[in-house]
C-alpha cells in the first residue's frame, strides 16, 4: 500500500506545484496532462517502473534527473537513445509536452531512498 500512497501524494504535490509554472509555459490542457501522466506511469513505467524508480530503464526520480540539462532530457524523450531500448516518443507528444513531463518529474518530492 505504501508505494501507492506515496505515488498519490507525489501526484498531488506535483499537481499543486504545477500551477506555479503552468501559467508561464505552454502547458498542455488538463485533459492532455492527465493523458500524459497516464502514459508516463503506464507506458514509460513498463521499463522505468510504475513508480518510476527504474527497471530495465533508468530511474526517473528527481534525484536521478537532477543536474541533467532540460534539452538533453527532452531530446532523449523525443528521439530515444540509440543503442539502448529507449524508443522515440515523438509520434505521441510534442516537444512542449515532453518538457512539461520533465518539469513534472523534476517537481516531484524526492522519494525516501529506503522506500
Amino acid at each position: 500500500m505504501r508505494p501507492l500512497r506515496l505515488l498519490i501524494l507525489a501526484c498531488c504535490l506535483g499537481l499543486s506545484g504545477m500551477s506555479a509554472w503552468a501559467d508561464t509555459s505552454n502547458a498542455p490542457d488538463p485533459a492532455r496532462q492527465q493523458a500524459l501522466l497516464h502514459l508516463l506511469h503506464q507506458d514509460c513505467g513498463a521499463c522505468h517502473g510504475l513508480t518510476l524508480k527504474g527497471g530495465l530503464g533508468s530511474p526517473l526520480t528527481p534525484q536521478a534527473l537532477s543536474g541533467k540539462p532540460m534539452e538533453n532530457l527532452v531530446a532523449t524523450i523525443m528521439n530515444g537513445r540509440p543503442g539502448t531500448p529507449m524508443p522515440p516518443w515523438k509520434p505521441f507528444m510534442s516537444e512542449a509536452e515532453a518538457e512539461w513531463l520533465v518539469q513534472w518529474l523534476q517537481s516531484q518530492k524526492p522519494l525516501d531512498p529506503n522506500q
Partner: protein
Amino acid sequence: MKTLLTTLMSALLLAGCASQPVARGTADLGIIIERASGHIRIVENSTHTQLANVGGLGDLSHAAAVFSRDGRFAYVFGRDGGISKVDLLTHQLVKRVLQAGNSIGGAISSDGRIIAAQNYQPGGVKLFDADTLALLADIPALDPATGVVSKVVGLADLPGHRFAFSLFEAGQIWVVDASNPRQPVITRYPHIGQQPYDGLATMDGRYYMAGLYGEDGVALLDTWYPEKGVTRVLNGYGQGAEKQPVYKMPHLRGWSVAGDYAFFPSIGHKEAIVADNRSWEIRRHIPLAGQPVFVMARPDGKQVWANFAFPDNDTVQVIDVPTMKVVRTFKPCKGVLHFEFTARGDQVWLSCRDENRVEVYDTQTLERITTLPADNPSGIFFGWRAGRLGM
C-alpha cells in the same frame, strides 16, 4: 438424552464447519495481479468468480507468480523486490520478504523446495527456502572476467534443481545447479549475443532460450548437450527490414510451442516468427496488428493468441495454427496487458488494465463469456502452472 447429545454435537460440528473455508481443489484456482494497489484477486476458473482479494503485497507494477507444487501457495514477485507467499485456500498472506531493491520475477525448483528471485538492482539471483522464505544463497550477476554487473532477465527452472537466466549487460547465460542450494554451482556461457531481454525454458525443460534486443536472433542452449554450448537461432529474423522502436519489451515466457512449431514475438517488427521446434529454422513470418508482447499458444496448440505494445495495446489477435493465418482480430478493451489460458485451454482470461476489468473468452466460439471487475489488472496466473516446467 443420547439423542439430545448427538443433536447438540452435530450442531456444534456444523457451526465449526461454517467458519472453515469451503473445501476446494487448487487446480481450479488462480490469481490476478492488481498492479497499482498491491493486491491480488484469487479467482476460480469454473465459476468465473472472485474468491478473495488479498492486499499488502507491495509494488506489483511488474509482477510475476509461481505456485507451490501442491498448488496451495502462490509466490508473488513484486517490482520492489518483495516475495509474498499467499495461501489460496485460507486467503492469507502467510509470509513476505523484501529481498532486493528492484526485482522482476522468479521461479520454483523442480522439487518445489527452492524459490529463485531474479533482480535488477542489485543485479543477481537469490535462492530461498520455499517453506520459510529464508535466504539460502546469493548469486550476484557479476561477470568475474570483466567486472560488469548485470540486470538478470529470463529466469526459468530446469529439471534437476537447476535454474537458467540471462545477463542483460554482459550478454551471458548462466545455469545454476542448486542440488545443494546453499552452495549452488554456476556454469557460465559468455558471448551469447547483445542485450538478452527475456528468456524461456521449453515445456519439456530441454531448451533454454534468450531473446536478444541488440540483434535479430535468439540464443539457444540445449541442456541435454551442454557441452555444445550456446548456439544462435532465428538469426536475422528481421529480414534486413529497418528496425522499429519498441514501446514495450516482448515477453518470451509462456506457452509458445504449438505442435511442430515454436512461435516468437518479433522485436521491433509487427509479426510473429514461426520456427520448427527441433531444428529452430524459420518457417514463416505472420504479419500482425502491432508489435507483439505475448505470443502464446492455447495448450492444445491449435491456436496462438497475441497482444501488443502501445499504441496497439487495445487489440488481440488469434492465429489458427494449421493454416498459419490470423482468424480473428478484436479490440476487447484499452490496455490489454496479459492473458492466461485455463489448464486445457477452453477459456482465456484477458486483463484490461485501463478499463479495470478482466474479460473471459471461450476459445472455441471466440465469444465473451463474462467480465470480472479488477483494479488495474496486469498478470493473470492459474494454478496449473504448479505442475509445469519452465513456469
